[in-house]
């Protein structure tokens, strides 16, 4: 069992470029920031390393950081430009019983993150969900299509500046 700081040290030693830093100032859980295009290599290492053995991905969550510039369009709806979308990975080791949280941030206009669905099978649907609701594009995902919303839905509902369509297939939405 290792603390998050120890895990960070191991990772930093292994991948000096890809591991961006650790945010230990947060009150509850430290976060390790990773480069979005290197996340897969790091995850493979985390899974296969004998001393870490992160054998399962518990949760993969996409987050709209809403840290860009906010403007209003003609109808008074928020529009966010710039800033980032983030993906949080909660990893768990069933045998060693330690956990770690990774974070990657990708630019809002071009949110490319490398898929980890080859590392943990459970990432498949979680990534599809993040794509569906936030529009995060997972590179090399085997089947990146919408999962919760209808296949022909437009827009990404969980983005902070999402605006409901008025009708869907002739049914009034609001």
């Amino acid at each position, binding site marked *: 069992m290792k603390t998050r700081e120890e895990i960070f040290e191991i990772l930093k030693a292994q991948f000096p470029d890809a591991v961006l830093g650790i945010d230990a100032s947060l009150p509850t859980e430290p976060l390790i920031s990773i480069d979005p295009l290197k996340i897969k290599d790091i995850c493979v290492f985390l899974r296969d390393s004998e001393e870490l053995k992160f054998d399962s991905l518990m949760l993969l969550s996409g987050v709209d950081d809403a840290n860009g510039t906010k403007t209003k369009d003609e109808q008074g709806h928020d529009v966010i430009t710039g800033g980032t979308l983030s993906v949080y990975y909660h990893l768990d080791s069933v045998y060693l019983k330690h956990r770690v949280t990774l974070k990657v941030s990708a630019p809002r206009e071009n949110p490319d993150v490398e898929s980890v669905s080859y590392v943990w099978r459970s990432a498949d649907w979680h990534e599809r969900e993040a794509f569906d609701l936030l529009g995060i594009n997972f590179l090399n995902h085997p089947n990146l299509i919408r999962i*919760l*919303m*209808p296949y022909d839905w437009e827009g990404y*509902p969980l983005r902070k500046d*999402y605006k*409901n369509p008025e009708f869907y*297939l002739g*049914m*009034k*939405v609001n």
Partner: protein
Amino acid sequence: MGLLDKEFSEGNIVIAKVDDLFNWARLSSVWQLGFGLACCAIEMMATSAAHYDFDRFGVIPRNTPRQADAIIISGTVTLKMATRIKRLYEQMPDPKYIISMGSCANSGGPYWEHGYHVLKGVDRVIPVDVYVPGCPPRPEALFEGLLKLQEKIRNESMRKKTV
């Protein structure tokens, strides 16, 4: 207008009696479509199960819409599901009835404000006969809904409806 239509539109003793008999048959054997949507479906199951026993009223679940008389919309109708519900409704043979069970099916319920994927009331897609309020309605409330539906059926007639 033919003679028969005229007879029907005015009504008479024979029609009235046949009406009563047929209405009695219809209201005594409402076969529901075995179809659950969300939380309310669990209460619907509890209504059919041992403690409450929907079968006392002659309500049994049929799994195919072709053999069902009533559909209980038990839960939140999402936009993805609404088209399927409409299709199920269209597959049922007449006379068919709809009980909208729970706030979500009535009006969107707790999801009416921010539910971007929730249909705000199933009556936007199919016509509803009885609304049962509650989130979820207790089995007793569903009974009440069924009794209201029976009342409604009891007052139906083969006669042409006058405008």
